[in-house]
């Protein structure tokens, strides 16, 4: 980019409400430069939060420390517990397979040798191949609604585990892996939507460490 071009764009760039509503999302609003000197064209295809930021500018919202603390507490109370419970259940679900194996799953489905370990391999193969498509779906569609659809399907598949013979069981474990692959990406997105960067490590730990509850509960049973 020549210095002349840069001068042309050196004004104040601002994305307006009209730009966001415009049909032509590729319309260039202005050009900025990356730290490495690469020109970046700004279009109306920005973050979902932009429209709220534009609206906030008119009403002058101020965030003082006390309000921030109160709001953070409220977010913690409403957002984190459900995520923790779900993570705990995801872990219990992993344990359920090994409990079932002790309670007659292996004999009823006539599993021998490595046949049982294949149920876990199938799960991670499903997870491995679906984690990227799942992430794409989470981007394309509303995060919470999408992850809840995945979780409801996952519950249904879990119920179906009671029905089939061995090949069907392995197929169900694969589908289960596919469905569960969306949980962590969704939770990562939700955490970054709600919390500031220095709050995120603690919050990820809160929902992630609920695995530990799963181990404790599992051990107690």
């Amino acid at each position, binding site marked *: 980019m020549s210095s002349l071009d840069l001068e042309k764009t050196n004004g104040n760039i601002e994305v307006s409400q009209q730009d966001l509503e415009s049909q032509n999302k590729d319309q260039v609003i202005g050009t900025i430069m990356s730290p490495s000197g690469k020109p970046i064209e700004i279009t109306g295809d920005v973050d979902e939060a932009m429209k709220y930021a534009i609206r906030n500018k008119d009403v002058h919202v101020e965030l003082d420390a006390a309000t921030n603390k109160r709001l953070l507490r409220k977010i913690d109370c409403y957002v984190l517990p459900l995520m923790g419970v779900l993570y705990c259940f995801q872990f219990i679900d992993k344990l359920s397979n090994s409990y079932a194996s002790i309670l007659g799953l292996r004999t009823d489905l006539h599993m021998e040798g490595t046949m049982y370990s294949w149920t876990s391999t199938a799960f991670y193969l499903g997870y491995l191949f679906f984690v990227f498509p799942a992430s794409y779906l989470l981007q394309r569609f509303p995060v919470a609604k999408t992850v809840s659809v995945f979780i409801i399907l996952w519950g249904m598949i879990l119920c179906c585990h009671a029905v089939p013979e061995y090949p069907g069981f392995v197929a169900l474990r694969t589908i289960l892996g596919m469905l569960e692959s969306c949980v962590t990406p969704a939770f990562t997105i939700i955490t970054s939507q709600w919390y500031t960067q220095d709050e995120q490590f603690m919050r990820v730990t809160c929902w992630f*460490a609920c695995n530990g509850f799963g181990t404790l509960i599992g051990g107690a049973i």
Partner: protein
Amino acid sequence: MNQDNYSIKAWKLIFIVLGCVTMFLGFLIAAHLPDTPAKAWFLNEQERALVVERIRKNQQGFGNKHFKKYQFIEAISDYKTWLLFLFGVSTNIPSSGMTAFGSILLNETMGYSVTQSLLMGMPSGAVELVGCLGLAYISTITHSRMFLAFIGTGIVVLAQCLLAFGTLQAVQMAGYNLYAFVPIGLICMVSVVASNVAGHTKKITSNAILFMGYCVGSLVGPQTFVAKQAPQYHGAKVAILTCGIISWFTIAAVWYGYVRENKKKDLINKEDFPSFENHEFADLTDKENIYFRYQT
């Protein structure tokens, strides 16, 4: 008729009960968790506006709905993405191996009885919970998550050494319980994706690659325990320790990378760049945004 027609097998019941609870949780999430904070039913109008201002300093917003190819390419050509992948593989080879063979290690290798083994496994759940939350809590005071993840993973490597080289039962047991610190590394890397990878497409791509590594680790891990090597499982112990050291190294490498890139950004004179109102919410990647700073 026989009794089987009327009663259901215990293992089938487990799956049905868990499945129903999971479905219920799914409906609960749909009703309770909003798709973006601006739509939260539990916040009032003013709080919804404040949530946006709160995360402004993240240099990121709620997300962007379109898959941007250039961000995908930036993600797969960023060396840090592949460090995340390497971390996922190297942390989960030992983890999944230990999950699958943990009670066998206690029982066969360390010589505890079956009941003892089950009871001995329990403290590690508590160590996991208290240890990880403790380290994360310290990080809120010191503002240094990479350092604490480095310490936590260091403890894990120590635990692996005790397991591999310890000859006394008590030493091996200490190693087994200290190993429960292991999630702290993965937690740190997930939080790194949340905080330090900006640009929504870049973020979801990096996260997917991290968890692909995690799956590869899960698939390989149990294979390191070769039946022929029972009960000492030397091969598995070597694999566990090697992978532990690699994952420790990747945390240090990611940490160093962020510190170095922050230093580079500090040298930039921001006055030379055109000003851009609300640039925080323009879905810029961490590399594109001169104001973006990595959390270390």
